[in-house]
């Protein structure tokens, strides 16, 4: 079959690879009908995430048709149409029973490696480094889905791929980012990053009743889409984020802050960003935490910071004194996708939200390598790329 494979920094290729096969009784094989490039795939593309090996199949946002099921998978059958969450979960361990699916205790088959890196392993993820299991990803014609009797979301209605594809990652990620802010009707929610997760976080914050939603970015097209969703926008190339946020909140700062940027912040005009880039260039720091620093600084005391943006390793000069003295609550983590999928699917069916608004580019899978670059460079108004195998 054909798949997009990682071969090194900025080197993604459309390769011939062996077809996947059933390896465990609870597996299923899914023929991919739509997949997407996620912002967190760019961390792999840019070479900032550890644990990738040449030839790894990329992709953790995908959906398709079940073409084969293992003997112990009594939930799926051949022909089912499914969206597959990016987190692989067993459904039986202590964390899964608590709904903490992204930290499933059994699905990461490289537990020893992850234990060394993070202290304790997190869940297996599709197409996302050997630290999270080294599972083949979904930017391919076929995918093996482990524990397929647990996470895949069956689509039994007439909704299109474009409407439901993002149930596997970025829609629940934006939703969880807003939910874990516990938004109150008096709250201002500030969201750093108007990429796909930021766009969904904006809609989630509006639907969950925020008084005011403010988004921070410097890409005009993304700010335009954010305004359409109800956000007040701040272009950090043109104005001071801290001053404007204070202006918008009577000098008190936003109660809730969401980091939808993660480890590759691009605020090149700020001194701390230059410092991060210099340290990153000489390998003394893995991530650029400009957004975390700014959130901690500007957030209202006793406020909440929600971090769906992906961080991979070590950060420097984090103002933990401000975080502690202001009594901020910090909520992080990969998304517990299956906590939200039933609820969000119902909202899509009822017309409360149409996630397809975020798609700006739809291309064939073979064009994926070029689209990684377009997406990475934010060229051609690119916000979300959907690939069709």
């Amino acid at each position, binding site marked *: 079959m054909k798949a997009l494979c990682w071969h090194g920094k900025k080197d993604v290729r459309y390769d011939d690879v062996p077809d996947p096969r059933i390896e465990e009784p609870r597996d299923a094989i899914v023929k991919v009908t739509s997949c997407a490039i996620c912002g967190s795939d760019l961390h792999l593309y840019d070479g900032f995430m550890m644990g990738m090996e040449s030839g790894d199949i990329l992709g953790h946002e995908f959906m398709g048709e079940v073409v084969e099921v293992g003997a112990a998978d009594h939930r799926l059958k051949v022909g089912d149409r499914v969206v597959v969450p990016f987190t692989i979960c067993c459904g039986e361990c202590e964390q899964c029973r*608590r*709904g903490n699916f992204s930290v499933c205790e059994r699905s990461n088959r490289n537990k020893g490696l992850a234990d060394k890196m993070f202290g304790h392993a997190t869940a297996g993820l599709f197409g996302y480094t050997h630290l999270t299991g080294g599972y083949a990803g979904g930017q391919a014609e076929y995918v093996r889905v482990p524990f397929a009797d647990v996470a895949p979301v069956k689509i039994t209605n007439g909704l299109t791929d474009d409407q439901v594809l993002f149930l596997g990652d970025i829609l629940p990620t934006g939703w*969880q980012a807003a*939910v*874990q802010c*516990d938004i*109150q*009707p*008096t709250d201002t929610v500030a969201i750093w990053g108007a990429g796909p997760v930021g*766009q969904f976080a904006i*809609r*989630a914050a*509006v*639907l*969950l*009743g*925020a*008084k005011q939603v403010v988004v921070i970015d410097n890409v*005009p*097209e*993304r700010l*335009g*889409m954010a305004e*359409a*969703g*109800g956000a007040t926008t701040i272009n950090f190339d043109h104005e001071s984020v801290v001053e404007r946020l204070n202006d918008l909140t009577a000098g008190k700062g936003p109660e809730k802050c969401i980091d939808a940027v993660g480890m590759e912040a*691009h605020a*090149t005009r700020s001194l701390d960003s*230059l410092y991060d*880039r*210099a340290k*990153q*260039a*000489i390998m003394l720091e893995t991530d650029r935490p400009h957004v975390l620093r700014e959130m901690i600084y500007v957030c209202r005391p*006793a406020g909440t910071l929600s971090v769906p943006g992906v961080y991979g390793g070590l950060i420097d000069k984090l103002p933990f004194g401000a975080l502690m003295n202001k*009594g901020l*609550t910090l909520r992080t983590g990969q998304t517990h996708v299956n*906590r939200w999928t039933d*609820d969000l699917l119902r*909202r899509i069916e009822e*017309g*409360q*939200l*149409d996630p397809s*608004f*975020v798609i700006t*580019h*739809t*291309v*064939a899978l073979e*064009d994926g390598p*070029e*689209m990684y670059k*377009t997406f990475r*460079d934010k*060229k*051609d*108004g*690119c*916000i979300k790329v959907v690939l069709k195998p």
Partner: protein
Amino acid sequence: MNAYRPATNAARRHRAIRATARGIGWLSIGVGVAELLMPRTLAGAAGLRGREGIVRACGVREIVTGIGILAVRRPGPWMWARVAGDALDFATVGSRVGRRGNGSLALAAIAGAAVLDAGCASAIDRIERRGKPPMRNYSDRRGLPLPPTAMRGAALKDFEMPADMATPALLAPWPPTALSP
């Protein structure tokens, strides 16, 4: 399907220019390190004997501009900073030509570097100017069935806040009364 554009000659040219800029960035760091570690040798070669402090300062400048070029996505300003540095070097070495050392050779090397730096900086500027196609307009991409003002709080009628994600009781309003909007 929309918007896919295969790599063009222009795209390949852009990549070559950016690769040249990266090469200059690494070269700048290398020269800077040499100027910091061997100021006496380099000062002698450039006819600046006795002015090792200036050579070290130039080394710091070279390292800073080199890191700047490598670290940012749009290195044009850092390339122009190098051109300004080249002019400064030219003036400094030029003022000492005729005294001891290979001042003329050093001047020629600086001039060569300046031409390369200025050429690369200009090429990057041209890319930046040309590389901005008309902005796409996504102002109609609401994703919501009604204007956001009408959708505010729409999910709350049937959304149950998970207890483990609610604001810790310690930080909730006290006394625990409902907040009014």
